[in-house]
């Protein structure tokens, strides 16, 4: 037996793909799925890439599958929305080489804009879903998913959640399977989804569903643990772990496949227990189906559709245990904030001064919505900043948006923002788009993208020139400004929003966390000059605080030396010091 190693769920997913003989992997970074690709890139024998968005990533994987190799796409739950178009039709075409999609949901919204349940999308697309409960299963289920994909001629989704993706557990490693490439055979009835062919494929999908409902009862990834017959629990994924902690005496049916449901297996289990509970995070996907078969069960009547579960939650809800605990202290919150030295703060300080509203987007810069910055008014999904600004202009006229801009990051712009910008050009918008170009995909932990000049593997590649791109699609006014040059930025924003022509301002400065070398310059407050006016504190740099006797001080363990505070001080009270 090989040694066991400690792996994040996401690292185990990657290992599973490697061991399964997967040859192509594509993804767009998104918490909590990002580390899957970051782990895959370390294995030889798999081509892996960051694609500009999830739709592209899935289509890359579909192409690889059609050509005859095992292929993987991975994404977060909302990424699956972007990839929904190819997903729904790949369900009809089926596969050649195995095609697996790992999708990570985010119950509790650690880093997402909604709490949607991937199983509901998979049901609509009629695609099987497997749900592992720990790192070992994460690896094994991916391997099983590839087998299933080829056997049943279907894409297979492996569903994760934040808690699984970002927990580490022990994993036993195996060798990589030697999977031979399949030959490609032209088959337009299967791969060209025009109406006549798709009608026939729909029949194939329906009979595949029926076969899976029957066959899945015998899949080894389902586990039945009969103990006390008083309480029976149907569960899957991470909630299984809470069930084992809270209800060690209960009989448990742990489903490895959660779509379609293995009906016979469930019916038999239900018939052997007195009270049946269905314990699943997020939507009652299993529960509603089981109840529709006439089986009595308790689920969302006593458990929530929101957030993560826990063993204590089950002890209270199911056993009625009164767990006496020390109360949590009532304390000031500590919400996430832009880092010290973040270039977004500099840009936002200018927008705030000019009282400009931001149609926002998805990234660290979404944090510009909260105090003390308060410049981002909307955040919907990737790319929506630009298109929603366009919608506002068309609704209320060009004068109305003269105190609005769209703010979007460089990676998000290439993800889906570019389409929206083309629409602004095409449909004659006059608005202003600010691309906050920090040379990376920041929020997810610094992944490269098409404009950074590096691939996922770290190889040099062509770097898309954002300025040239915007000009090429027809934006008449494109400015490139240093994000920390607040005077020039202010002048440029004023000019752009006042103008009756479409403008893009690319505010450039690398993410403060990109440069890992030690800080060589920091700032300090000269208390003699300081008038305590508080201008330097307005943008909310966490390194600047007021002491109890109202002195403004800069914390030397946090200051990143960006100099924004110095630019804001009118009394020369903030000066730079060399460190190291």
């Amino acid at each position, binding site marked *: 037996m090989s040694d*066991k*190693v*400690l792996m*994040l769920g996401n690292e185990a997913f990657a290992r599973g793909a490697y061991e399964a003989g997967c040859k192509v992997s594509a993804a767009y970074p998104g*918490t*909590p799925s*990002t*580390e899957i690709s970051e782990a895959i890139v370390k294995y030889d024998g798999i081509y892996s890439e960051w694609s500009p968005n999830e739709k592209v990533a899935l289509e890359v994987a579909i192409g690889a599958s059609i050509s005859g190799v095992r292929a993987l796409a991975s994404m977060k739950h909302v990424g699956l929305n972007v990839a929904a178009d190819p997903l729904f039709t790949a369900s009809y075409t089926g596969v050649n080489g195995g095609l697996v999609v790992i999708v990570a949901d985010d119950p509790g919204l*650690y*880093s997402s804009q909604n709490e949607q349940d991937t199983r509901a999308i998979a049901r609509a697309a009629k695609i099987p879903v497997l749900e592992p409960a*720990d790192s070992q299963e994460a690896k094994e289920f991916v391997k099983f998913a590839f087998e299933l994909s080829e056997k049943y001629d279907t894409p297979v989704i492996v569903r994760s959640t934040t*808690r699984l993706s*970002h*927990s*580490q*557990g*022990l994993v036993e490693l195996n060798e990589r399977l030697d999977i031979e490439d399949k030959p490609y055979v032209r088959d337009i009835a299967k791969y060209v989804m025009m109406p006549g062919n798709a009608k026939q494929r729909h029949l194939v999908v329906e009979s595949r569903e029926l076969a899976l409902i029957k066959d899945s009862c015998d899949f080894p990834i389902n586990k039945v643990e009969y103990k006390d017959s008083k309480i029976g629990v149907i569960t899957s994924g*991470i909630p299984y*772990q*809470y069930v*084992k*902690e809270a209800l060690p005496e209960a009989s448990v049916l742990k489903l490895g496949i959660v779509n379609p449901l293995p009906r016979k297996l469930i019916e038999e289990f239900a018939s052997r227990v007195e009270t049946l509970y269905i314990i699943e995070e997020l939507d009652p996907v299993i529960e509603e189906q089981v109840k529709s078969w006439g089986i009595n069960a308790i689920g969302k009547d006593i458990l929530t559709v929101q957030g993560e579960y*826990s*063993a*204590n939650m089950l002890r209270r809800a199911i056993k009625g245990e009164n*767990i006496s*605990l*020390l*109360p*949590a*202290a009532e*304390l*000031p*919150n*500590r*919400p*996430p*904030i*832009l*880092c010290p030295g973040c270039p977004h703060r500099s840009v936002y300080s200018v927008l705030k001064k000019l009282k400009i509203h931001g149609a926002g987007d998805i990234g*660290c810069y*979404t*944090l510009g919505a*909260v*105090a*003390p910055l308060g410049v981002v008014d909307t955040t919907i999904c990737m790319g929506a900043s630009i298109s929603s600004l366009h919608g506002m202009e068309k609704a209320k006229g060009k004068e109305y948006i003269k105190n609005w801009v769209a703010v979007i990051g460089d990676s998000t712009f290439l993800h889906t923002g570019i389409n929206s910008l083309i629409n602004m050009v095409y449909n004659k918008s006059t608005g202003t788009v600010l691309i906050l170009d920090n040379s990376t995909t920041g*929020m*997810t*932990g610094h992944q490269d993208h098409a404009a950074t000049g590096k691939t996922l593997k770290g190889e040099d590649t062509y770097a898309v020139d954002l300025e040239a791109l915007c000009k090429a699609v027809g934006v008449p006014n494109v400015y490139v400004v240093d994000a920390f040059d607040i005077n020039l930025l202010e002048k440029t924003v004023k000019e752009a929003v006042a103008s009756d022509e479409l403008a893009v301002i690319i505010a450039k400065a690398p993410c403060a966390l990109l440069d890992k070398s030690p800080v060589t310059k920091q700032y300090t407050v000269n208390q003699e000059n300081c008038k305590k006016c508080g201008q330097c*504190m307005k943008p*909310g740099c*966490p390194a*600047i*605080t*007021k002491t109890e006797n109202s002195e403004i001080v800069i*914390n030397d*363990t*946090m200051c990143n030396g960006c100099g924004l505070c110095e630019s804001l001080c009118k009394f020369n009270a903030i000066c730079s010091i060399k460190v190291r």
Partner: protein
Amino acid sequence: METKNIMIVGVGGQGTLLTSRILGGLTIQAGYDVKLSEVHGMAQRGGSVVTFVRYGKKVYEPIVEEGQADILIAFEKLEALRYAHFLKKDGVIILNDQRIDPMPVVIGAAKYPSDIIENLSSNHRIYRINAIDEAKKLGNSKVFNMIVLGMAAKHMNFSKEEWLNVIEKTVPPKTIDINKRAFEIGYGLGE
């Protein structure tokens, strides 16, 4: 052995992930089943972060729940108080005596509590140190987390050699020496 529950809490960017990974490496080296739960993504950006480490014969859930923690390693005072109710009655707090104002305090919308230490001491055993100052003496304030971990190590059943061995395997090669020295300072002060 009953499962041991350890929590590492602090402010995003303080190095809770590295610390928990050292703990994880240590426990598997000793042959335990272990699960770690981490925080990535938006919450990491200067927010309140908590990492769980559980080890024992067989570990199911990867999180530590209220009233279950044996040791709370806190890199910041307010965060120590925020998670103190996760401790068992006889649980221990290892505290880096540092204050980092959260944004509501910075902008004057909330007050940083002044009685944190008294509050923590009234319910729990607490060991504290200004690890930032100690780390600065070593020449790099960032290794403060190893000093705190060294203090916590005194309350766990692993030998100093086992700890140093895992630190060597886990931290970036260039920083092995300073991290080990930082750990030893904490270890010497742990009781």
